[in-house]
C-alpha cells in the first residue's frame, strides 16, 4: 500500500519536473523573441534593410545594415557550400568504405566531436595566425575559410548520424545488384539520407550566420558591400555587437532591429529545410 503510494508520488514528481523544464524553455524562447521584437520592430524600416551605413550611421543618423545582411549571406552561403564539398565525402567515406572498421570510425567521430566543442574565438585566432603567416589581410575569403573550418565538424557529424541509420541489408541489396561502393554511396546513401543531409546543411548555415567571434579577426568589418573575395566584409552578428556597444539609444535599438533580421533569416532557412526534407522523406525507406 505504502509502496504503491510512493510510486504515485515518484511518477507525479518526475512528471512535474519534466513539465516545468519544458515550460522554462518555451518561456525563455518567447522572452527572447519578445524582447528582440519589442525593441527591434520600431527601428526596423525599409531604409534599414536597403541601405548601407551613411556618414553618421553610428551616431543615429541615416543609413542601414544592408552591408551586414549581404556580407553575412555571402559568408555563410560560401562557407556552407565549401563545407558541403568537404563534409559529404568524409561522412560517406566513414559509413560506406570504413563501416566495418569501427575503431577508426569511432576515433574520427571522437576527433570531430572534439573539434565541434572548440570555441569559435579559437578558430578566429587560429585563422588570424595563419593569415599573418601568409601575409593576408582580413577579407571575405579568409572569413569564409575560417567559418568553413568551424562548421565542418558539425556538418560531418550531422550527416554521419543520418548515414549510420542505413541498414546493412540495403548496402547488401545494392551490392548484389552489381553496384560498386561509389554507386552505393552516391546513389543509395545520399538518396536514403537526403533529409539528414538537408538538416546538416541548415544546422551548419545557422551556426555560420550566427557566429561573431570567428569573423572578428578574419573578415573584418566595413560599411561597404564587398565586391570581391579579397575585400573586407561586414556581418550581422558584428553589426549587432558594434551597435549595441554604442551609448546612443537610437543606435542601440537598431542593434535589436538587426537581431530581428538575423532571427528572421534563420527562421526562413529552418522552414525551407523542413519543407525540403519533408518532401524527400517520402522516398526514403522506413526500416
Amino acid at each position, binding site marked *: 500500500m505504502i509502496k504503491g503510494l510512493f510510486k504515485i508520488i515518484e511518477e507525479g514528481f518526475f512528471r512535474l519536473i519534466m513539465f516545468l523544464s519544458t515550460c522554462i524553455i518555451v518561456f525563455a524562447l518567447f522572452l527572447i523573441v519578445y524582447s528582440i521584437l519589442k525593441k527591434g520592430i520600431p527601428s526596423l524600416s525599409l531604409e534599414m534593410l536597403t541601405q548601407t551605413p551613411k556618414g553618421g550611421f553610428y551616431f543615429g543618423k541615416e543609413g542601414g545594415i544592408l552591408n551586414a545582411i549581404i556580407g553575412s549571406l555571402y559568408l555563410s552561403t560560401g562557407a556552407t557550400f565549401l563545407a558541403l564539398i568537404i563534409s559529404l565525402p568524409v561522412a560517406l567515406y566513414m559509413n560506406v568504405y570504413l563501416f566495418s572498421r569501427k575503431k577508426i570510425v569511432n576515433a574520427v567521430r571522437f576527433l570531430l566531436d572534439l573539434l565541434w566543442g572548440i570555441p569559435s574565438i579559437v578558430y578566429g585566432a587560429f585563422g588570424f595566425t595563419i593569415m599573418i603567416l601568409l601575409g593576408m589581410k582580413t577579407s571575405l575569403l579568409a572569413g569564409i575559410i575560417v567559418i568553413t573550418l568551424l562548421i565542418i565538424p558539425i556538418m560531418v557529424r550531422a550527416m554521419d548520424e543520418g548515414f549510420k541509420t542505413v541498414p546493412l*541489408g540495403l548496402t*547488401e*541489396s*545494392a551490392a*548484389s*545488384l*552489381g553496384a560498386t561502393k561509389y554507386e552505393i554511396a552516391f546513389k*543509395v546513401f545520399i538518396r536514403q539520407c537526403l533529409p539528414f543531409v538537408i538538416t546538416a546543411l541548415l544546422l551548419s548555415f545557422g551556426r555560420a550566420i550566427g557566429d561573431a567571434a570567428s569573423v572578428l579577426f578574419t573578415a573584418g568589418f566595413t560599411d561597404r558591400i564587398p565586391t570581391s573575395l579579397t575585400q573586407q566584409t561586414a556581418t550581422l552578428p558584428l553589426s549587432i555587437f558594434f551597435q549595441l556597444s554604442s551609448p546612443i539609444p537610437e543606435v542601440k535599438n537598431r542593434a535589436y532591429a538587426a537581431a530581428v533580421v538575423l532571427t528572421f533569416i534563420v527562421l526562413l532557412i529552418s522552414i525551407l529545410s523542413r519543407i525540403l526534407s519533408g518532401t524527400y522523406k*517520402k522516398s526514403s525507406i522506413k526500416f
Partner: protein
Amino acid sequence: MNETYKIKVEDLNLYIDKKHILKNINIQIPKNKITVILGPSGCGKTTLMKCLNRLTDLYPEITVSGRIYIDNEEILNNRNGITKLRKRMGLLSQRPYPLPMSIYKNISFGLKISQRRKKKFLDRRIEHYLKQASLWDEVRDRLKEPASCLSIGQQQRLCLARGLAVDPDIILADEPTSALDPMSSQAIEKKFMELKQSYTIVVVTHILRQAVRMADYVIFMYLGEVIEQGPAKELFNYPKEEKTKAYLKGVFY
C-alpha cells in the same frame, strides 16, 4: 564434375575474426532446380549463401578459404569481376530492402549499372520483370511513386523483380518469406516454382514445411556443418543421419 551441377563448393571454411563459422563445406547445387538449405537458426545458412555471391567481401573481419565453382569457373579466389559475379545472382533477403527511389528506378537501377539504355528499352524490360514478379497489375499506374509506399509483400516482389532485372541465372533467397503474411509467402513460393524452369534457385529456410513444399534438392546444416544432402524425396523420406532425423521430427524446436 557432373554437368547438371550449377554450383559446387569445395572445402569451404569461414572464420569471423577467430571464430570458426562454416566448417569444411562440400556441396553441389543442381541446375534449374530449387535447392533448399535447411537448418535451425544460427547454423550458418545465410553466411554460406553470402559466400556464393561474395557479399562476405564487404566485411574485412571475415576470412574465407576453399573453392566455389559456378559453371566450372572458380569464383572465390578470383580478384576481379566481383560486380559481374554478383549480377549473375539475384538476391532476395529476409526482409525487403527496396532502394530509396521510385518503383521504376528500383528496377532500372540494375539495368543501368550494366550499361546505358534507351528509355523505350527500359520501359519494356521493367514491365516484363514486374509481370514476372506478379506485381505489374498492382503498380502499373504508379511507377513513379517511391517504393516505400508499397506494402511489405509488394516490396518483396519488387525486390524479386529487381533481382531478375540484372539477368542472373541464379536466384539466392534468404528466408524470403519470413517477414511476409501467408498470402504473400504463397505468391513468392508459387513464383519460385515457375522460375525454376529458367533459373537455379537456392532458398535458405528454417521452416521445414516450406522446404518440403518447394525443394528438389536439400542441404541440411547444423552448427556450421553440412550434415546431409541429397534429392528432396530421399532426404525427407529416408534420412541417413541421426541429426537430420531429429530435425525432421521436430526435436530441435
